[in-house]
């Protein structure tokens, strides 16, 4: 069955805002794998409820409301050992998280410029930690540095990138 115009509009809106929704899930859960699972559950839920969305209204506030509910369900079902935030903290942070996730695209764009300033070995370290998922201990062993040194390098890189993002956002495009 060919998709309807409404389906097409919904899919286009969902695709466009999917990175912001993933950022919302990540900021609510603080854990990359959990965020991806919560995002998938959110997308399925949004698809099920797609008839409720009025294409003449903004997509993201509606989608965030569904994502909030889905994240809380996810927290209830999840084994406790991996959670970073308590349920009440997740709920207390929801508004701030929505506000931050709305800016995801701007921050990602700014970060793209900031990352060009990093040395190749700094980018490699971030890649190994945040994408490959190697722990500080593993990175310390692989690079011949102490764990505290690797931890400090990662921390400084995050702070450096965060400050750079703020500077980039102050530049009028």
């Amino acid at each position, binding site marked *: 069955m060919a998709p309807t115009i409404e389906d097409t509009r919904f899919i286009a809106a969902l*695709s466009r805002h999917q990175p912001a929704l993933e950022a919302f899930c990540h*900021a609510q859960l603080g854990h990359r794998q959990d965020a991806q699972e919560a995002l998938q559950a959110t997308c399925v839920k949004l698809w099920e409820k797609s008839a409720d969305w009025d294409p003449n209204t903004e997509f993201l506030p509606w989608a965030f409301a569904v994502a909030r509910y889905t994240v809380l369900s996810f927290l209830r079902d999840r084994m406790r050992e991996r959670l*970073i935030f308590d349920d009440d903290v997740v709920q207390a942070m929801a508004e701030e998280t929505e506000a*931050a996730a709305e800016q995801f695209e701007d921050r990602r*764009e700014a970060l793209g410029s900031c990352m060009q300033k990093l040395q190749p070995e700094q980018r490699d370290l971030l890649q190994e930690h945040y*994408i490959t998922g190697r722990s500080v201990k593993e990175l310390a062993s692989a690079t011949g540095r102490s764990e505290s040194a690797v931890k400090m390098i*990662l921390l400084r890189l*995050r702070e450096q*990138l965060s400050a750079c993002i703020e500077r980039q956002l102050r530049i*009028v495009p």
Partner: protein
Amino acid sequence: MNSESNSLDHQLLVLLHAVREQGQTGSARADLNELLRQNTAARAAMARLLVEEQALIHCLREASILSLLAPVAQPSVTKSLRAQRWFLRRPFTTAAAGLLFGMFCTSMVFGYVINREAVRKMPLAIFDQGLESVAQLDKGMPHGPGQWGVQSARIVSAENGVQPLQGQSMLRMDQVLMNQDDENLSSKAYQVLDLHPLPASTVAGAMEAQVTASFCAPKSEMKARYLIRAVALNEPPATATENFWSKAEDAGVVSLTQRFETEAGDSDWHTFSVKMPLPHGAQSLVIILAATSPKDKTKPAAVRYLDDVQVSILTSPSLQP
């Protein structure tokens, strides 16, 4: 961000890291949750930091997919930037990359392509944008891309109470005061950029070049004056700087100059930006960054600093032909 928010960010990042390393057994998790319960600013900062972390994952994931799709790409800054542009311009390959993300349906993959097309800013590879290189700088206009040319300037580390804006070094620009009868000379930095990697259709369309640079003056009783100039040329970078000044004055050449000023006594870093439409067929972009000398020849020569130079190509739906 002020120092208070920097300190809060630091505290949150340390706690978050400790929770991830210790899991449920350590005290960091309780400390982090308690801080977030009690402190509204901490909640906002935590949300922002985690959204930035997701953006970092997003950028790193893109780079990782690029390396899978283009195994010849080297990890140098220049090549990765070119690869990024390549990524933006090939929707079918991008769709293939989207598959690697494990999207849950083919429509999602298509949607990812739509999203990439909405990107508004493409950074151009600029040689040593942080002015960190210890290599010899060309005197005057550089002979080709991949080097800085300078007039009365040199790379230094922190001095005169000025810290580099980023990295360990910055460009010190010494103003040149000439004799009473001669014109004062400005200290300048030049670089020629190759626009050839941009697809012809892009350069021919409605695009803008944005040049951004940060300047700083040590505390002084004089206003500081700076200049950013961009010149687009319809010839390759290898020859673009030959007889440059006569070409730059040609009426057919697209060029933009903007002057900036900061107040006397202001010793902060200031970031300035100019935008210029890129003409059809432009192959090279020459950027000139200058600290201009005071017109009053009785004033003493001043020192200025330059750091963090960036060039981007701007495009948006409103700019599309």
